[in-house]
């Protein structure tokens, strides 16, 4: 849904007060960056003023605050709200000061929440698309990604049009991770028959190791109902892939998510204390899957579909040399490849030793 937008493209904003959670510079930066999200895909220009009435007045408040007809509810629950284009409260954005506002993934990222609320201040309603920035529930997404989904872009452009001098092809998303960037890391990696699939944020790369061809796609292009930010993935012994995020997992066969998924990871045998999986790999030779969580791993028997007794165990004991948190892992030609941030380690499970250390993007022929 969209509402009538502003009748002008040049809009002003004013930051009326600040949260003590962040430095003023960080708040200014977060707000400016949040406006840039929308000016990147529309003709809109946002200018900051420091006095008087701006089109978009930005303030932090708690419970009942000023003349606002809505109130906040203390920590969690409602994080912020905004009003559609118009005079008075129209276009204004309020943040709940009882929340923990941050620049990173802890607490609530001010930039991400501000970009969402500015969508309302420009005329957008909530979106039903879980991948959209305008989806009502908060979800942290990697800040190296452009946060607008195609749904957000078509919504805002239906009100204001495209940015000037863009030929009328669909606007490309301004930033996408560069696989050959020096700090490239991955959220999850899995094999799929002869391919290796690398996942990060909303993107996946299909790599054919035999001829080092790569293809980049949106995860949603293959599996529309998978969320961005998959945390672990592995190919099991039945030509299926399992994807993990938080305490949920999906089983995929080809393009289909099997019926009944997502399920809770405790159906695999994890206790309720386990909230997420960092990485997973199925050893094709033994039919056992190792789940890596923190500095420990659990072992799951694919044949009996049950978690083995006596786990979790310390990862470094079974995999000497693998002492970091495991971001992602996969098996290729019998060897395991463990990833942590921009590094990866080749591990020989027979010799039980690391045989090589490489950059995480070594599979991309950079």
């Amino acid at each position, binding site marked *: *849904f969209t509402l009538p937008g502003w009748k002008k493209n040049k809009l002003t904003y004013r930051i009326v007060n600040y949260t003590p959670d962040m430095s003023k510079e960080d708040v200014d930066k977060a707000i400016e960056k949040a406006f840039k999200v929308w000016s990147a895909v529309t003709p809109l220009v946002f200018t900051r003023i420091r006095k008087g009435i701006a089109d978009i007045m930005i303030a932090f408040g708690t419970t009942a605050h000023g003349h606002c007809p809505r109130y906040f509810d203390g920590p969690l629950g409602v994080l912020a709200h905004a009003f559609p284009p118009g005079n008075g409260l129209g276009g204004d954005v309020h943040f709940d000061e009882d929340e923990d506002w941050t620049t990173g993934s802890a607490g609530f990222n001010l930039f991400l929440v501000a970009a969402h609320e500015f969508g309302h201040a420009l005329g957008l309603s909530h979106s*039903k698309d879980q991948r959209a920035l305008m989806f009502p529930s*908060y979800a942290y997404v990697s800040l190296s990604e452009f946060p607008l989904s195609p749904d957000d872009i078509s919504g805002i452009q239906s009100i204001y049009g495209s940015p000037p001098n863009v030929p009328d092809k669909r606007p490309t998303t301004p930033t996408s991770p560069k696989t050959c960037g020096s700090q490239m890391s991955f959220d999850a990696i899995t094999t799929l028959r002869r391919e290796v699939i690398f996942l990060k944020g909303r993107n996946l790369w299909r790599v054919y190791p035999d001829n080092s061809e790569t293809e980049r796609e949106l995860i949603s292009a293959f599996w529309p109902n998978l969320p961005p930010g998959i945390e672990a993935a592995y190919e099991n012994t039945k030509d299926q892939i399992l994807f993990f995020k938080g305490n949920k997992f999906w089983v995929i066969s080809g393009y289909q998510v099997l019926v009944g998924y997502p399920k809770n990871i405790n159906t695999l045998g994890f206790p309720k204390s386990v909230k997420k999986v960092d990485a997973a790999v199925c050893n094709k030779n033994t039919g056992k899957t190792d789940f890596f969580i923190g500095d420990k791993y659990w072992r799951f028997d694919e044949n009996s579909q049950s978690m083995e007794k006596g786990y979790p165990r310390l990862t470094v004991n079974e995999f000497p040399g693998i002492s970091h948190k495991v971001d992602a892992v996969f098996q290729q030609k019998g060897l395991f490849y463990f990833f942590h941030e921009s590094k990866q380690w080749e591990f020989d499970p027979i010799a039980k030793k690391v045989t090589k250390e490489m950059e995480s993007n070594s599979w991309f022929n950079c």
Partner: protein
Amino acid sequence: LPTYPEKVSEEDSKFVQNYLNKFYAIEPDPNQRAWKINAESTDEKLQKMQQFFGLKVTGKPDNETLEMMKKPRCGVPDVGLYG
């Protein structure tokens, strides 16, 4: 099939009622200039919320629905013209 809590606690049912009143209560009524407070029943509002979030539409506060409701979120209503 969605799993149901044994019995929805009074606290949870108040929470559900408050949530629906806050985010699913106001509907546009083009025929009348004034907004019409949404007189739908709680079940109908709940179904609308479940549809919106892509949950199984049961009209009942099952565990998944409660879990989604308890996620931190934006204070703008999900339906209507959030005016």
